[in-house]
Structures are given as structure tokens and as C-alpha cells.
């Protein structure tokens, strides 16, 4: 019997995939977010550099917003560290057995790096 690939949204929500599932979902969404914003940043950089355009400057001010920075850095750091986990587990296949442990380790690294970002952003907010 073939696998049923037509799974509805709410039925999909009930799937209990745990850590690896959330890592997969976050990796995809963070990747799409990064493609969007890095793409916009390239366009904005080009417009600002070549024409001094208001639109380019307006787009780049989004990147100076502290809430945007906190959200975006989480996505970037997660994507980078999770990607490293995928690369390591793909290349060293015997380690695949410890996939769940790898995800715990991954979150520890993310928390350490991300708290540095939180400190830096909040420091900028408070010190002006």
C-alpha cells in the first residue's frame, strides 16, 4: 500500500515528531526567512549604493530594529548550528544513532550563542 501523501494541515499538527521534526520545520522556515531578508538586503544595498534611493534606506532601517534583530539572529544561529548538525551526521553516519542527543547538544550551543546576541542587542537599547 502506498503512503498517503495528502495530509491536511490540522491532521499534520497532531503528528508527534518531537525534536527532529521541530528542527526540520525550523530549518525550513528560517531558511525561507533568510532568503527573503538577505535578498531584500542585497537589493537595498544596490539601490542605496547606486542611486542613494529612499526605498533602499527604508528597507535597511528594518535591519536596525531591535525586535527584528532578536528574531532574525535566532533564525540565523539556529539555521547555522542545525545545518552543522546535519552535515556532521550525514558525513559520520555511525553517529546517527545519537541523533536525539545531537539535537540537545545543538540547543545548548544555540542558547550560548544566542544569549550573546540578546546581551549585545539589549546593551545597545539601554546604552543608546
Amino acid at each position: 500500500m502506498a503512503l498517503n501523501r495528502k495530509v491536511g494541515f490540522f491532521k499534520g499538527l497532531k503528528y508527534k515528531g518531537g525534536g527532529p521534526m521541530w528542527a526540520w520545520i525550523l530549518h525550513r522556515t528560517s531558511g525561507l526567512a533568510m532568503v527573503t531578508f538577505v535578498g531584500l538586503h542585497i537589493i537595498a544595498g544596490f539601490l542605496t549604493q547606486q542611486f542613494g534611493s529612499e526605498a533602499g534606506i527604508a528597507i535597511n532601517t528594518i535591519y536596525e530594529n531591535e525586535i527584528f534583530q532578536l528574531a532574525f539572529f535566532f533564525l540565523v544561529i539556529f539555521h547555522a548550528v542545525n545545518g552543522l548538525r546535519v552535515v556532521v551526521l550525514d558525513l559520520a553516519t555511525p553517529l546517527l544513532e545519537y541523533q536525539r542527543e545531537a539535537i540537545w547538544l545543538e540547543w545548548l550551543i544555540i542558547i550560548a550563542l544566542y544569549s550573546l546576541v540578546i546581551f549585545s542587542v539589549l546593551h545597545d537599547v539601554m546604552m543608546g
Partner: protein
Amino acid sequence: MTSRKVAKRGFNLDYVMWLFMRLSALAMYVVGLTGLTAALVMGARTQTDLGTLIRWTFFQNPNHVFSSDIVLLDNFINQFWQITQITMVFFGVTHGLNGLRIVVEDFMGSTIWRTLWRGFIFFAWIFMTLVAVYVVLAS
């Protein structure tokens, strides 16, 4: 009932891009850490804030350090950093748009939308790479 067609094993686009995603990720780590280490050696520890250092780590563009108190700007603006920027642009844009391609291939059936998406992604890849390299060479 016919089962889904599975791509042939071996040397094909999916295999090459699978490998590329992993290698480009490692390459971007190398470029980023090179920028970070070099910046710290060149005085960034006392002459920039953390935000500037992070911007520089991700992309070694002169515009990313102009707002800081760097003394020897020449160390930060030269052809070596243009090469690392172009490397980062190539790997970053290709990695990102191939990621978009993987998502599209996963969720689109064989419809006209998939063809349109593939075309869009291909032209976006060429366009973004050229625009970004132009910005690097002109800044």
C-alpha cells in the same frame, strides 16, 4: 495504482546539489570565521562594537565597518576581502535559492506552477548573484 517515479541514483542534479548544500555550508563557516578572526587580530576587539563585528563576520563589506572606530581601515578594505565577499555571495545565494528550490520541489506537484517557480528561481539566482557582485566591486 502506479507508484511515484524515483530519480535514478548516481551523478545527477539532486545528488550534486545535496553535496553542494553541505560543502557550501562548511565553506560559509570558513569564510565567516576567517573574517571574525582576522578582524579581532586587526584591532576590532577595542575599536568596534559587537554589532559591527557580527556584520563583518557575515559579510566583509566596507559599509559594515564605516560606523566603527577602526583606525587602520586599509586592512579592512582591500582585494582579499573582495574575494571573500564574492565567495560568500556565490555560496550564500546559491545555497539559499537551492533551498527554496528544494521546498518548491517538495510541495509542488507536476503543475504549471512548478515550472514557473523553477524559472523564477533560476533567474533570481543569476540576478541576485550579479547584483551582489556588482555591489561588492563598486563599494
